[in-house]
């Protein structure tokens, strides 16, 4: 969900019609799947919900939708691409580095402060959100007149060239930029381990940029004086690069720029980019009505589609469509149908209460959990709720238990929450360790999930539902817990057996395995003083934990 800043007056001038701010806020912005989050003078902070529509992430893109819905311009916007002689030669050495680029030239721009800030913002949002933080798409915009054609996209050794990066004053090698320039530091991982780095340079040997890191200060700086620009998008896959280029170029064309093509010469093929010809699609009007429940005539559908910036023509039961090249999200007629409903207005769709003959139910384990909780509450225990995530220290060290294999997170945010618990008791002791200043005794319980490893299963893990109870206080001991267990078991109508057991978290001789129908079902005992010490607990504690899955 990219958040963008747009100047209200700039937006209106792009639309070509006055839309009162409250109308824009309550209705207009919805046409671009947006929400105005903040208004600061003329500046609007807008959250655009569609992460698959980079064309909407600028004032120009929002304006296109508003033009359609407020009747300023209908149908697919057309962009003319003039032929230019500019050539970009792509070096085969880029093969495993950053092999693909698509380029364009836009001339005759009037770079107002709003136009400039929109261009920079769009470039940023497209490369970060759509281009996966510059990995898939890096975008460079340059002053066309500072470039001596032809342009070469090539690869150089990390210290094989020197140029002044944007906002710097002295020449640096690419290797130095990665170590010293703020953008170099931020994006160095994208070039990590590569024998050569990608470089755009012109026929005069002037460096344009080191993608996906930084432009040069000389060619890669666009100001209000700039009239004509050269644009390149570099990456790996045309699926990302073409839409990205089209989005940027269309936005500049909407501000009055004239688009010219660039000949991109790859080792094995030649392409002329950008391709702004409208794309074709079709929608079946019966299918559309079946999905929406609205009974709209093909003619009405075409009207709504025109407002959504499609060229729409009735062809029998189907509607033939042309839509602008900056859109890359139309995969199925469903995508078109949503645009129809957006034009129609979501709040004009009448909700229908369809009665479906279904019977509700919860899982058996939830019912059992509820019954167990009822008894525990009746016994005076306070229910607590903990995270399933914990850490090895809590699970093993503090429990005086030998380390075991558990489900472990690789990219944890905090090591405090880096593994999945395989039983609940450590969570209860953690809780008690944080309440030493509260009144005792502290009978608490939790019914919750834990995750264990199980190689035989499709997910290599098994979720278990356990109930753990513990109490801490001067008079708390084994017998107390045994009474609690007895009360619980008899309330559940279960026969159980206690067998002498060993467990490093409990005091030897005061530890029992709980067996139900002859099978191990849990453990009970008095907490070992080593464990009390490691949690900083100063009063005796006893606990039990039973698996509920086996009881079902």
């Amino acid at each position, binding site marked *: 969900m990219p958040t963008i800043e747009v100047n209200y007056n700039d937006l209106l001038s792009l639309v070509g019609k006055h839309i009162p701010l409250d109308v824009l806020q309550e209705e207009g912005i919805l046409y671009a799947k947006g929400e105005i989050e903040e208004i600061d003078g003329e500046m609007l902070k807008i959250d655009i*919900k569609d992460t698959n529509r980079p064309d909407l992430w600028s004032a120009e893109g929002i304006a296109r939708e508003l033009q359609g819905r407020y009747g300023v311009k209908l149908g697919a916007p057309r962009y003319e691409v003039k032929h230019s002689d500019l050539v970009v030669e792509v070096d085969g050495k880029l093969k495993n580095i950053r092999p693909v680029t698509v380029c364009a030239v836009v001339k005759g721009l009037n770079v107002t402060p709003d136009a400039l800030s929109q261009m920079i913002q769009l470039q940023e949002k497209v490369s970060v959100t759509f281009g996966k933080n510059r990995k898939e798409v890096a975008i460079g915009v340059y002053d066309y007149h500072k470039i001596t054609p032809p342009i070469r996209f090539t690869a150089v050794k990390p210290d094989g060239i020197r140029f002044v990066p944007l906002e710097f004053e002295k020449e640096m090698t690419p290797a130095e930029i990665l170590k010293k320039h703020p953008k170099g530091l931020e994006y160095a991982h994208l070039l990590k381990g590569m024998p050569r780095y990608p470089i755009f340079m012109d026929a005069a040997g002037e460096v344009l940029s080191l993608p996906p890191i930084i432009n040069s200060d000389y060619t890669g700086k666009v100001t209000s004086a700039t009239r004509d620009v050269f644009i390149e998008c570099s990456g790996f896959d045309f699926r990302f690069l073409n839409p990205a280029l089209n989005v940027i170029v269309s936005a500049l064309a909407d501000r009055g720029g004239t688009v010219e093509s660039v000949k991109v010469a790859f080792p094995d093929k030649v392409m002329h980019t950008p391709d702004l010809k409208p794309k074709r699609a079709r929608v079946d009007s019966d299918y559309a009505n079946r*999905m929406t429940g609205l009974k709209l005539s093909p003619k009405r559908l075409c009207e709504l589609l025109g407002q959504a910036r499609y060229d729409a023509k009735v062809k029998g039961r189907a509607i033939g469509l042309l839509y602008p090249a900056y859109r890359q999200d139309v995969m199925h007629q469903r995508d078109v149908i949503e645009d129809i409903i957006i034009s129609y207005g*979501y709040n004009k769709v*009448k909700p229908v209460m369809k009665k479906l003959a279904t019977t509700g139910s919860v899982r058996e384990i939830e019912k059992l959990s509820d019954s167990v909780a009822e008894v525990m509450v009746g016994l005076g225990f306070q229910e607590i709720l903990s995270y399933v995530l914990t850490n090895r220290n809590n699970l093993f060290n503090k429990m005086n238990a030998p380390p075991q294999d558990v*489900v472990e*997170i690789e990219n944890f945010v905090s090591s405090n*929450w880096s593994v999945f618990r395989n039983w609940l008791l450590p969570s209860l002791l953690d809780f008690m360790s944080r309440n030493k200043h509260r009144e005792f005794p502290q009978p608490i319980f939790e019914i919750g999930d834990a995750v264990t490893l199980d190689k035989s299963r*499709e997910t290599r893990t098994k979720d278990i539902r356990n109930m753990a109870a513990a109490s801490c206080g001067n008079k708390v001991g084994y017998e107390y817990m045994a009474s609690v267990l007895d009360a619980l078991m008899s309330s559940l109508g279960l026969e159980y057996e206690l067998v002498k057991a060993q467990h490093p978290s409990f005091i030897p001789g005061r530890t029992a395995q709980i067996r139900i129908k002859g099978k191990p079902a849990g453990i009970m005992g008095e907490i070992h003083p080593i464990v009390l010490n490691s949690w900083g607990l100063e009063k005796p504690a006893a606990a039990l934990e039973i698996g509920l899955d086996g009881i079902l």
Partner: protein
Amino acid sequence: MRSLRPSGKHGNYRLTEEGLRYLKQGLPEVRLVRILKKPMPVDAVRKKVGNFNVALSWAKKNGWVRIDKGKIVLVKKAGDTGVQESLRKLHDGHATTEGELRILISRNLASKERQSLKKAMSLAGKEVTTLTPELIKTGLWRKTRLRPYDVKVTGEKLHPGKRQPYNRFLMQVRRKLVELGFKEMTGPIIETEFWNFDALFQAQNHPSRDWSQTYTLKNPKQGDLPGKKIVSQVQAAHENGWKTGSTGWGYKWDPVKAAQLMPRAHDTAISPRYLSGFSGKVEIPGKYFSLVRCFRPDVIDATHGVEFNQLGGIVIDKDLTLMDLFGLLKEFVQEITGLSEVRFRPDYFPFTEPSVEISAKHPEMGWMELAGAGIFRPELTEPLGVKEPVIAWGFGIDRLAMLRLNIKDIRELFSQNLEWLRESKVTI
């Protein structure tokens, strides 16, 4: 501790705790004899019979057993010594003979209560604080004056056992869903990317699959993909749209990536499992919900917890439309929140098209985004073998809970503050 039961002629005698226990469980010597089917080592019997020493001594005295080479040998079956009957008589307040009583006293199964009676009598005409059983039984209370208390004094602070407030809220939500005809579904906490993403038609290089937004696992790493048919259909949907009329994402789908394991990042991971028949054939019409813990690597603050719960589900029927989706959502939001004014806005989810956001007007908070929903994309449902339209919806249940519990910091939903839990109200 003594029995408080009254009795008849020997009203000043009553059963001791031991006497009461034997009344309930039977005499230990009788229990001992009962388990003795063949000669057994003394130690073995000791483990099985409570009050073993008492049991053995009386069993020998009664001539029922003898000890031979460390084994207890049965001489004859236990006869009726009358002790059991005496216990019952004294307990029920029936007359007992002096002889019977003597045996009970000698075995410390009954004792006199003279002490307390004497004391009760001495209280006649006085003001008393404690109303004792003797005062009540003997009617001596009539001759005393019960001291009045300061009724405004609240006694010692008690902490009742209570459900965790957030959990209670979740239970109420579950109950409400059942009333609305929804069946609960569930899936594993550790899930394959296949069910978490691929089966939901999220392309393998989609930004929301990026490592920065979901957890990856160090252990275990790879799981299993489901049956070949579903896998190949999902693969085709991604690559070229399969038979759905879609263009697909146009890339080479990687089964190894799909088999990677990860902690479930959203509840929607569960729906495709059910649609594919994971838990038996999906009912049509069908309403299903899940209310599960989800995991994402957010930096923890007042609005991002370590873990969060999501409530979501699906509704499936032939010919479901957007109007039905809106109707269902409206009913739903009204039932769950009690708020009546709702509005719909366009939204985006990678797995639904069209997609909608639903908000409700709260008297103080104004419009609140509550749920996202939509109709599952055909590229999702058809490869799983589902032809009918499927409505999918999801609630930010944690936010709703915070509103209901009047909590400002999401971390408090999992509060480790015992005081807060003890003070929590059960009336939400």
